[in-house]
């Protein structure tokens, strides 16, 4: 990559109307945060997709490394007792 100036890349998160958490929807370029939010509005909510926007500079995101996938996520596999289906409840008790 050269030292050419390009608007930085921003990651866009949108909360839809249904009360779910902000969800990553994509990215875009913008010169600053203010414009990034407006661009996000124009690019990612053209079909009434959201009621709230977060933008964050892609370079500011700290991410887990793909190489560590095993140690990070595999251990959770064996904790089956965290899931409700692990427990058998007599049918006559009904819903629990």
């Amino acid at each position, binding site marked *: *990559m050269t030292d*050419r*100036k*390009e*608007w930085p*890349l921003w990651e866009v998160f949108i909360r839809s109307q249904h009360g779910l958490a902000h969800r990553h*929807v*994509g*990215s*875009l*370029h913008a*010169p*600053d945060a203010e*414009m990034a939010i407006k661009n996000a509005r124009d*690019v990612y909510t*053209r*079909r009434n997709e959201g009621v709230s926007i977060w933008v964050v500079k892609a370079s500011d995101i700290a*991410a887990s*490394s*793909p190489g560590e996938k095993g140690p990070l996520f595999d251990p959770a596999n064996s904790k089956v007792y965290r899931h409700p289906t692990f427990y058998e409840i007599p049918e006559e008790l009904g819903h629990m």
Partner: protein
Amino acid sequence: MYAQMVKTGVDRIQSSEEMSPEERAFQERIDADIKIEPKEWMPEAYRKTLIRQISQHAHSEIIGMQPEGNWITRAPTLERKAILLAKVQDEAGHGLYLYCAAETLGVSRDELMEQLNSGKAKYSSIFNYPTLTWADIGAIGWLVDGAAIMNQVPLQRCSYGPYSRAMIRICKEESFHQRQGYDIMMKLARGTPEQKQMAQDALNRWWWPSLMMFGPSDADSVHSAQSMKWKIKINSNDELRQKFVDQTVPQAEYLGLTVPDPDLRWNAERGHYDFGAVDWEEFYQVIAGNGPCNRQRLRTRVKAYEEGRWVREAAEAYAAKKAARAQAKAA
């Protein structure tokens, strides 16, 4: 297609035994339909091929804005104007999503734009044909978007996560594009004799270029075989072309229009339409830069990019000044 004849840089498919352990693990993940995500290990050829394919696709969206954009100011009603503008705007969005997907592979949008502007990068042959009448806007929606959708729907399942997610968004948004095109054609086909003539003329001019969009037969192409193995290409060119013809011919009949192919007939035995030979010489010429609008399209794109440079720089400079002022204030 929007990405035609994408080279993979390989001259033959490696067998499992020939692969390095990393390559083998990579291929196994693809075979198991596990998505590949940015920053994960991937063969260099996979990365490069994807950049080429995704950027070709993005360039096609951006160049594709021109033939249709040509008619935004001349759309015949306020509603048609709004619909067409919204559609061309969507194409800018689709180009944007795709450039962003390509950027996850370690290339910048500016680099990709410069590849396009220098004529080094390719885009779909179809956008080098002119839009001469309003019916061409209908024909593009119906035929060109119809052909594109055929390719894009399976690509939603492709192996690269960001590409697959971009395609999902694009397919969702594009669902109205083909319909609006057919809607224009219906109005024309049921309109005055001049309008019907306009519709037939558009079909005559766009039919063969639409079939060319799928690219030449790739039954023997090592690149296609490799791309399919990587699951960044899902169907063969001939397969998609046949599907397109089978789907489109009845739609033309419904409009009362004639497909400009004397060899076109239903083959009951195959359960498909037989159709005439595509003029691949024309296709290769268009790809090589000799289509009716290649130079015009590229010139227009370069002009917009160059004339926008001072604007992009100004916004960048303003952001820097503002950040510096905020910092000075905090200090």
